[in-house]
């Protein structure tokens, strides 16, 4: 696929010269649901430009639990640290929803970035955008209630997937949000009773976007503002699927 029409926002935002630097080195990748791009303390081999799906940056603690610190998809790039600095993965990046896209060898990208200041700065901006998101998520997790956090999470996922149908289990959601299953069961039921979502085994269907925006905390808007200012990306409208009854 020619990069001028790339579904990935980072690649699309590069100048034709910088795109030309990367093009010969890009290879396709498919990450099935749950597959890691890299794990904490690994050496990052490849930097990933998703075309679809959702990549979650997750932090593991000694109990074996993992909590999500941020999510990225076609709007950005995963593994920028390896192209700017050292190749050690700070945390783990997994496909929360199956993802396809293009990868480039981290060492190659680092070398190319040293020859193009514009390319290097684009990587810096995306690294900062992820950092802004994870800082906002840290505040959100500490201060906001589960209903607000879950609403934000659903809206972010929907924006990245460009779909109202989110193929996610409540068990997975509970893990990502760092809460017990039953807490998600109760909050999901509340959102369903309010007509905002409908859930079935294995997926959640967003019905009322404005309602979810009202139910969520300020962090959804804050994260979008950071992304808009730093990397020029905002969520876009898409053709909504038929509401199932």
């Amino acid at each position, binding site marked *: 696929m020619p990069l001028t029409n790339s579904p990935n926002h980072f690649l699309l935002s590069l100048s034709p010269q910088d795109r030309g630097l990367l093009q010969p080195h890009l290879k396709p990748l498919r990450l099935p649901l749950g597959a890691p791009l890299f794990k904490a303390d690994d050496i990052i081999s490849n930097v990933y430009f998703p075309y679809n799906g959702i990549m979650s940056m997750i932090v593991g603690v000694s109990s074996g639990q993992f909590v999500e610190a941020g999510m990225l998809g076609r709007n950005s790039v995963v593994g920028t640290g390896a192209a700017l600095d050292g190749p050690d993965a700070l945390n783990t990046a997994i496909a929360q929803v199956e993802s396809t896209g293009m990868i480039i060898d981290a060492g190659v990208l680092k070398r190319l970035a040293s020859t193009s200041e514009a390319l290097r700065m684009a990587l810096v901006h995306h690294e900062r955008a992820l950092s802004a998101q994870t800082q906002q998520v840290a505040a959100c997790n500490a201060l906001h*209630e*589960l209903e607000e956090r879950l609403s934000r999470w659903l809206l972010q996922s929907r924006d990245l997937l460009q779909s109202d149908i989110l193929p996610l*289990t*409540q*068990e997975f959601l509970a893990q990502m949000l760092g*809460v*017990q*299953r*039953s*807490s998600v*069961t*109760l909050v999901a*039921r509340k959102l369903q009773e309010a007509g905002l979502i409908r*859930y*079935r*085994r*294995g997926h959640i269907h967003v019905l009322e976007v404005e309602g979810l925006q009202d139910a969520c905390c300020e962090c959804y808007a804050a994260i979008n503002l950071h992304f808009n200012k730093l990397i020029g990306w905002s969520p876009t409208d898409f053709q909504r699927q038929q509401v199932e009854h």
Partner: protein
Amino acid sequence: MARYFFHIKDGADLIQDPEGSELATMEDARSQALKSARELWADAIKSGRSLGADAVVISDEHGGLTFVPMAEALPKRPG
């Protein structure tokens, strides 16, 4: 491993867990139900809202039900 569902009983209402979790034993399921109940208590107290549950109801693969009353999850008084 077996699949256990963690429903929530609130008066006459049963709020269903649509997917369940894979766990090794019923003891593990009880332990998870108590953990869930403690978190529901904590959320209710912190937010000032009502508990919204009388029990966590564990359903095994055969439809057998085990009730874990919310009261069971409260901290025990020293004594």
